[in-house]
């Protein structure tokens, strides 16, 4: 599908990892997204890692303002955005200095030469021009006058110079598209859709810049090889690329439809969870009510109100916001109303590293409430998995009349991967029952339980079921306020038992690899991809190692204890200081080996592999 017949030799490779980086204003996220979509459309498996600067836009050209987007694309199944980069595009000196260390030796380095002026280099801390001294000798350096060429290319579109310069990212895209033999068509369609009607001049300019980049690759001699990455053999089906937060939002929408419910989201903006609010607020025609609350406490308690109302009720936030919801969660637990609480984890403690990823809210999810206050906790493993986990969270919530904590993290939330679009009809319904009107005059018993220990979800408007919920201890069965000592003990144990019994209702833990062996790698959340890849490699190397990725963190799958008995060692890699380890040790009384990292970055495959090799 390339736009012209290649005139240079093409090397076929299995996979590649590239990264666009530049100033926040340079449109690197857009470039990355376009490359991703194009590669996905071409049939590659892809995994991405957008890396935003800290919250505030720093002055242009500073290191603090550098924004990056990494894409790993492959002709086989992949699970991570790649450890090291094969080709790096750096739009300015600050981007170069902060990113070049991730480029592998011999990798392709494309830089915008025009940005290496005195001020730019000063801001990046370069004493001499790295494009001219020898410091980049170990890379295949292509120093391109991107600004100049782009200006020339768009000359006759009638743009201001500032506007013209904004087309630079399309030039860079064009060049990289040529390099990896990708079609321009999807991007051309994108330009047309986004700018065509409203800003025809911009559309024209971007098109020209894109093509200029492509032709630059074709023409310029210094760049002498093109690469090709063949389509991957993915399970058959219709595919699209999807980001974690979007998949999560769509999963929630689907859960609502599958349970015939209106969807209520009570949320307060917070990075990196805000996109769930943004996405759902676009889909009001799915019978969605999004309430931007005054704070997280109102978000949480409005969610309780909506659950009482009978809606599928959800709140979404990140660490500090979840901390504020702790008291409200206690009310959700004791009123036994169904709802989903999403935590898109970020770097803590406190405000911490708000745009970076971390898995350090697991213990808060388990224990961050007063009293004996048990709650199911489940976690997504990848962007696409967010969809499934959202459905599962609501299934459990409504089946067990309980709030469910759903953990994702910044890495999953902002990352993307190809997603096989499910057949809507194949997605199982989520049955919800509300007791109907009663006219026999008997007092309704809101805390009577079924075999799952679940109580009835009676909603206002139903004749004869009038009842009062609240945060004081409830009498068993009647739900009246009750100070009886034994009743309290009974109810505390009952709430715990109800959550524990969910273990009967979830699939047994799957194991990737042999049933027993030297080492079990146990992971949850974002590190899934790095662990899966590392374990596969170690297995290929003949190591006796298997992998379990946990979706269910409370309760754990029933067969987990038994799995542990079959391995000599258990390695738990986590982006925290050992939180799952603590829980596993307490629960199963086994020894665990922790691999911890809290740098705000995901694990690389190499980090996991190294540890595996040390242990098995």
């Amino acid at each position, binding site marked *: 599908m390339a736009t012209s017949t290649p005139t240079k030799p093409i090397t076929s490779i299995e996979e590649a990892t590239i990264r666009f980086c530049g100033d926040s204003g340079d449109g690197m996220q857009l470039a990355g997204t376009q490359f991703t979509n194009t590669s996905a459309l071409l049939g590659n498996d892809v995994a991405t890692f957008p890396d935003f600067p800290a919250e505030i836009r720093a002055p242009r050209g500073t290191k603090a303002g550098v924004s990056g987007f990494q894409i790993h694309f492959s002709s086989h199944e992949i699970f991570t955005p790649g450890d090291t980069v094969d080709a790096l595009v750096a739009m300015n000196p600050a981007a170069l200095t902060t990113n070049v260390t991730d480029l592998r030796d011999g990798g392709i380095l494309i830089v915008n030469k025009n940005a290496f002026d005195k001020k730019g280099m000063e801001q990046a801390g370069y004493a001499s021009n790295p494009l001219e001294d020898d410091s980049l000798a170990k890379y295949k350096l292509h120093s391109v006058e991107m600004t100049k060429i782009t200006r020339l290319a768009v000359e006759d579109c009638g743009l201001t110079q500032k506007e013209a310069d904004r087309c630079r990212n399309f030039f860079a895209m064009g060049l990289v598209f040529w390099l990896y033999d990708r079609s321009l068509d999807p991007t051309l369609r994108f330009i047309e859709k986004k700018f065509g009607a409203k800003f025809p001049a911009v559309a024209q300019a971007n098109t020209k810049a894109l093509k200029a980049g492509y032709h630059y690759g074709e023409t310029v001699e210094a760049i002498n090889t093109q690469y090709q990455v063949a389509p991957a053999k993915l399970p058959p089906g219709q595919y699209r690329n999807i980001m974690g937060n979007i998949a999560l939002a769509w999963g929630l929408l689907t859960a609502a439809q599958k349970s015939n419910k*209106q969807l*209520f989201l009570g949320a307060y903006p917070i990075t990196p969870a805000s996109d769930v609010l943004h996405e759902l607020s676009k889909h*009001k025609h799915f019978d969605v*009510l999004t309430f931007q609350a005054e704070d997280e406490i109102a978000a949480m308690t409005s969610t309780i109100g909506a659950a009482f109302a009978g809606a599928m009720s959800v709140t979404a936030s990140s660490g500090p916001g979840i901390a504020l919801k702790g008291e*409200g969660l206690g*009310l959700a637990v004791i009123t036994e109303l169904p709802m989903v609480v999403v935590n898109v984890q970020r770097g803590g403690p406190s405000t911490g590293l708000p745009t970076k990823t971390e898995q350090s809210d697991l213990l808060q999810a388990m224990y961050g409430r007063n009293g004996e206050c048990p709650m199911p906790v489940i976690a997504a493993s990848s962007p696409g998995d967010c969809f499934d986990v959202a459905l599962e969270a609501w299934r459990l919530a409504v089946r067990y009349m309980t709030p469910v904590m759903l953990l994702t993290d910044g890495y999953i939330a902002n990352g993307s991967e190809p997603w096989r*679009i499910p057949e809507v009809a194949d997605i199982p319904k989520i049955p919800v029952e509300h007791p109907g009107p009663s006219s026999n005059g008997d007092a309704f018993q809101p805390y009577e339980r079924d075999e799952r220990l679940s109580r009835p979800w009676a909603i206002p408007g139903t004749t004869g079921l009038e009842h*009062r919920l609240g945060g004081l201890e409830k009498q068993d069965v009647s739900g009246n306020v009750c100070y009886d000592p034994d009743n309290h003990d009974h109810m505390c144990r009952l709430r715990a038992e109800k959550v524990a019994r969910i273990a009967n209702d979830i699939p047994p833990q799957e194991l990737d690899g042999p049933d027993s062996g030297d080492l079990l790698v146990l992971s949850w959340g974002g590190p899934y991809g790095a662990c899966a890849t590392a374990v596969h490699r170690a297995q290929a190397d003949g190591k006796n190692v298997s992998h379990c990725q946990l979706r269910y963190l409370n309760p754990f799958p029933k067969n987990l204890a038994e799995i542990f008995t079959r391995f000599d060692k258990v390695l738990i890699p986590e982006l925290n200081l050992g939180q799952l380890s603590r829980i596993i040790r307490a629960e199963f009384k086994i020894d665990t080996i922790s691999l911890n990292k809290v740098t705000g970055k995901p694990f690389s495959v190499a980090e996991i592999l190294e540890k595996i090799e040390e242990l098995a």
Partner: protein
Amino acid sequence: MSIDTPLPVLKPADFASDQDVRWCPGCGDYSILAQMKKVMPTLGVPRENIVFISGIGCSSRFPYYMNTYGMHSIHGRAPAVATGLKTCRPDLMVWVITGDGDGLSIGGNHLMHCIRRNMDLNIVLFNNRIYGLTKGQYSPTSPLGKVTKSTPMGAIDNPLHPLSLAIGCEATFVARSIDTNVKHLASTLKRASEHHGTSFIEVYQNCNIFNDGAWAYAKDRETKLDTTIELEHGKPLIFGKNRDKGIRLNGLEPEVVELGKGITEDDLLFHNEKSPEPSLAYLLSRMRFEDGFPEPIGVFRSVDAPRYDEMINDQVKQATKEKGKGDLEALFNTGETWTVK
């Protein structure tokens, strides 16, 4: 319930739940409960469509005593709980019961935002100027100098005026009544229930255990006609045992004047609860007994304005009209997709 089934005729007693009422004997809360039960059957709303949401405090036990749906939530959060409920279920009539601590101290932010969104809720704030449930600390409405368990040398926090605050938050319906003024209270509750949007009612309530007599001046048979003034829409502000005193405006300052002696009703300030701008309501909320004014009771302000709960549901309808009912298949396939065979 189909439209032509006549509503069963209910009595106040039908709104009593089976729970023992556990306020201290003599507490002003009893009277408010009684009036609420009296008003309920007159509203034309089936019992199952009424919900009471409260926070924590003596006052917040209220929902347990009403045989409707209800939730005794957590301290200060009732307006937020009610917001979630009402947003999803605009068909329900939702009451929020709160106290001066619950609503104005820990819950101030939710109250403020609920009011400015003009959620269609009826909020009744039981103002006893004390924390009852926790046994007698001062509250945001306790006067300066008040000696309580937590202020043995007297309170030094300048008190809030609930109605001024509500008006500062763009309230569309603001009223005041008194626990023992049962007729007035009942009619005020009824007026609130009829308003579309947030109705905010302050009720002077006596806590006879921890703050007995806080409102004595406004409740006492002997003094109340001189210390309170009943607001009536379109009527001049007249008060006093002999209805011989009135409120006149001097620029922007109200003053108490005696009728006769050259001053007639026409010189007085006329109440206008429908005034689009809330300055009059604000000014009335500033009249305080301690400054020599009678304190207004009744409806200070009642104006129509768009309501959050209605608008959000309208957006759903509008979006559905424009885009059709949400289709997952279509959603999943928006943007670029590809087929793997």
